[in-house]
């Protein structure tokens, strides 16, 4: 487990303010499970509210923990979590092998594949009971994926499959490219961050710390 000091944002009356946070790489399984339990009540309540409002709610409002635990034991998987004010605000599981870019100019080159990423329910519009609490959770986790990609000498390349509901974040906030629905993967859209796009996402290389 490795802890890195960083920041998230917290909502104020005028917008956002920075708040201290910790990025954890290789999160212990029991910590992930504790977070999942802490999120469960609010996620279920959020799902109820969405249902009551007539919005779409997943048939199975959980992730396959048994499968994820198994994956965490494999050498090519790494996990990351972002903690703020004593609570886990987001979790991510990435695969470092078996995936490659699909679009030019990096086509065929290896990338870090985001297998799972989720923000705590109190940080998500619609799921939160009231205004979401912390911002930039997804940004920090994608940033961690880019950095893991650099550590693997994949030049910042990252890929994932996303639902249309998450496309705005991956396209506009992260600058990812999509080559459309993947018929081999539930028809979810394939998104990837090229080496060049990952540098633009990070806002240049002059602002790094630690």
């Amino acid at each position, binding site marked *: 487990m490795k802890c890195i000091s960083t920041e998230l944002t917290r909502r104020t009356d005028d917008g956002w303010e920075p708040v201290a946070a910790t990025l954890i790489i290789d999160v212990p399984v029991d910590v992930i499970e504790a977070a999942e339990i802490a999120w469960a009540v609010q996620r279920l309540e959020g799902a109820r509210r969405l249902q009551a409002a007539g919005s779409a709610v997943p048939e*199975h409002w959980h992730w396959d923990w048994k499968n994820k635990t198994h994956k965490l034991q494999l050498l090519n998987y790494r996990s990351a979590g972002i903690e703020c004010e004593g609570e886990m605000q987001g979790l991510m599981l990435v695969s470092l092998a078996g995936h490659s870019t699909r679009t030019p100019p990096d086509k065929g080159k290896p990338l870090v594949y985001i297998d799972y990423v989720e923000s705590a329910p109190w940080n998500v519009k619609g799921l939160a009971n009231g205004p979401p609490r912390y911002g930039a959770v997804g940004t920090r986790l994608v940033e961690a994926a880019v950095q893991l990609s650099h550590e693997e000498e994949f030049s910042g390349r990252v890929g994932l499959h996303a639902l249309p509901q998450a496309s705005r974040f991956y396209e506009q906030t992260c600058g990812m490219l999509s080559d459309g629905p993947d018929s081999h993967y539930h028809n979810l859209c394939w998104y990837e961050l090229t080496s060049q796009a990952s540098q633009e996402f990070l806002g240049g290389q002059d602002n790094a710390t630690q």
Partner: protein
Amino acid sequence: MQLNKDRSWLLKKAEQEDNDIVSVGGFVNRVAATEQNGSEESVEIPESARRHAFARFVELSRRRQRLTVEQLSEKADVDVAELIAIEEADTVSPEPRTIYQLATVLNVPQQKLMELSGLSRTRDRRFQDATVRFAARSEPVADLSADEEELFQEYVKVLVDTSNGD
């Protein structure tokens, strides 16, 4: 690992992200499957919460009867190792016979214990809610406190009320 410390970048990204859904994998894939299949929408107990609730329920039930793990093992004719695995939330799929034996000794509806153990599915919302709350609030301590006793009784009531009288 290098992380961007530029606050203006962070604030701009927070504004862009705007607390949208960022989820990938897990339930997201199941959402897609649901939308494609057009199946009926429902909500299930999160797997880890269910497993935690099952573990704590068995543990609290045993302690309430002032039984050691070994004594419950003998009384229910269940292997000690399996009982320990259940109370440690290590068992993903216990044996159906184990659940039947435990339900008998702990005096709880068999079907509900099957659902709590993960061996059968439940669509009972009250039971789902109660299970998640029980998982979130119960902690393993030496003796049942007054709060634990109240929590336990409350959950048993839901468990019995939502059963079909098996």
